[in-house]
């Protein structure tokens, strides 16, 4: 055979393989408002940067007449490319091929590209669109999932792992996204659950739609399984690219630096945005924007546990992880979900060399039987653990109230914050003035001729004496009490001089955090 014939044979084989499940299946995929697996990869990666491997892999199933079937690429596309000019490894399950079901070779392709990502120390992106295990391949399919989960765990904290849910992701399959750093979902397209509506109905008699059980909205708002929610695949890919601009390529690197830009202080006037009265609400994200480069703040998990805000901003061009109590929602209390949300983000930032800036304004923990019984002790402890364990530069700004356990948990100097700043409006105390006065002066108040009048006097007394940053500053628990419009200056300096921070932690295999 001549070179020409061999080349045309290769081309023919390739053109067949890239068709995936064929025209009909592709038509169906498109009619559901979904892109095909290959279109998704091309849309996400830098133009013309995608190189594919294992295009000619065939499935290994023998039983149930599977040996007579041919499945293009075994239902998954793997390859490498670039995003924002940096290398990434990527795989995308192809729903048009046997419903994207995961068989032995399908899993082998995924683990192959994951192994590449680990060797090359570059991020791995998984686009999930699969009906689940390929039943015909039985235990081999389960083995495939297990091999993926193991690699997810090993890669955790070494390379960024991104899961994009663009179709069903059900049963055991959902544990791979759950083990990765960030999960992206798209309205009406993403569906994640352990047991689907049919099983729930047949076993338990509970009727629920797929969307209500595990749709994008549910995971973005109720379960916290998703980190980013988009209304279209295109918007989702834009979010991924933006995220990649803030994070480093692996745990030995720093995120890209950008030219520094001052905040838009004419739009975000901190003196106007911030009410000094500790009972008044405001949006803490605007405070972040009043001090960050170009007033940009890239928020993570915007809908779930909105009483705490997490996300990325830049200071002097470098990425900083933000954790902030949100007085706009539930007065910014800590509870089970907000503790989980913040703790995981802190550990992410610490693993990937991203300094932490904590903005504090909280009345404490959310009271209630439901919280206690949901294990707020165990969940709240995660926050203490994550902050204590983190060795990246830790800067804390106490804006207003910092009461009790909440003060300690929000990266206080006792958990080894490097710099703790406070605004003159800060109130650092064991509890709010009213509660404290009621306890300390209980007897006096009870014995007074006019208890209510005395209570008011005592509350005012306590407020004057203790509801301020100066008691804590007198002990050196606050490093500097600063004016509001000096904040950025102090933060920039603190970040600059913390660049070569190094902390020795006791030698250990790993800790035992209150998971």
């Amino acid at each position, binding site marked *: 055979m001549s070179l020409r014939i061999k080349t045309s044979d290769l081309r023919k084989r390739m053109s067949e393989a890239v068709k995936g499940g064929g025209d009909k299946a592709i038509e169906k995929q498109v009619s559901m408002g979904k892109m095909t697996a290959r279109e998704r990869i091309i849309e996400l990666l830098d133009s013309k940067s995608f190189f594919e491997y294992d295009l000619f892999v065939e499935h290994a199933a023998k039983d149930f007449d599977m040996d007579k079937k041919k499945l293009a690429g075994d239902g998954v596309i793997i390859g490498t490319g670039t995003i924002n000019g940096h290398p990434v490894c990527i795989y995308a399950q192809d729903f048009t091929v046997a419903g994207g079901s995961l068989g032995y070779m399908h899993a082998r392709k995924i683990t192959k590209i994951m192994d590449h990502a680990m060797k090359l120390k570059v991020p791995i992106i998984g686009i999930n669109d699969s009906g689940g295990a390929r039943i015909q391949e039985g235990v081999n399919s389960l083995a495939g999932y297990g091999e993926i989960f193991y690699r997810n765990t090993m890669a955790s904290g070494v390379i960024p792992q991104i899961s994009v849910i663009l179709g069903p992701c059900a049963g055991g399959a959902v544990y791979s996204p759950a083990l990765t750093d960030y999960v992206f979902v798209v309205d009406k397209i993403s569906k994640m659950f352990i047991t689907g509506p049919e099983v729930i109905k047949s076993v338990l008699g509970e009727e629920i739609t797929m969307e209500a059980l595990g749709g994008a909205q549910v995971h973005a708002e109720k379960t916290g399984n998703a980190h980013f929610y988009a209304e279209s695949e295109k918007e989702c890919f834009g979010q991924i690219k933006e995220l990649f601009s803030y994070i480093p390529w692996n745990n030995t690197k720093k995120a890209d630096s950008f030219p520094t830009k001052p905040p838009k202080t004419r739009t975000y006037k901190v003196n106007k945005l911030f009410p000094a009265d500790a009972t008044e609400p405001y949006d803490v994200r605007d405070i972040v924007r009043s001090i960050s480069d170009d007033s940009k703040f890239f928020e993570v998990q*915007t809908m779930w546990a*909105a009483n705490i805000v997490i996300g990325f901003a830049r200071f002097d061009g470098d990425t900083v992880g933000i954790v902030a109590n949100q007085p706009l929602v539930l007065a910014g209390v800590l509870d089970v979900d907000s503790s989980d949300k913040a703790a995981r983000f802190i550990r992410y930032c610490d693993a990937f060399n991203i300094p932490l800036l904590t903005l504090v304004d909280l009345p404490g923990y959310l009271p209630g039987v439901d919280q206690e019984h949901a294990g707020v002790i165990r969940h709240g402890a995660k926050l203490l653990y994550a902050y204590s364990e983190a060795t990246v530069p830790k800067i804390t700004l106490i804006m207003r109230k910092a009461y009790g356990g909440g003060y300690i948990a929000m990266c206080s100097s006792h958990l080894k914050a490097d710099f703790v700043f406070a605004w003159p409006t800060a109130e650092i105390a064991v509890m709010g003035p009213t509660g404290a006065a009621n306890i300390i002066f209980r007897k006096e108040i009870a014995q007074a001729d006019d208890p209510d009048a005395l209570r008011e006097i005592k509350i005012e007394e306590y407020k004057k004496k203790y509801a301020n940053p100066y008691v804590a500053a007198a002990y050196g628990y606050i490093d500097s009490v600063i004016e509001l419009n000096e904040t950025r200056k102090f933060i920039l300096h603190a970040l600059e001089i913390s660049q070569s921070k190094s902390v020795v932690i006791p030698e250990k295999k790993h800790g035992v955090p209150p998971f």
Partner: protein
Amino acid sequence: MANKKKTPTEKVDSEFQDFRVGDTIYRTKLTKAYLERKPYTIPNKKSSLAFIPGTIAEIFVKKGDKVKEGEIMMLLEAMKMKNRVIAPFDGVVKDVYVEVGQVVAKNFVMVELV
């Protein structure tokens, strides 16, 4: 979604509600999760609730029967297991609220004793 927000949040007073933590009342927004939380109720030992959703497989007692502590009153089949529903104390069956084959949701009252 909220990433798109580029201007400071406008204050809309009607959105905010009073929210008490300790002895202080804060003005803030409440979340769906907070509003939907289940208030705590003291458990009633006299009612046997389905601890798991399932199907009533067998019933061994009827209204007016005397039961001894530890006696099996019915079988609740769930997740392929036949779970015994046991009398928590010596008593009399006040009423049985389920029949064989009935699918019950979690916390459904199946039988009550006096």
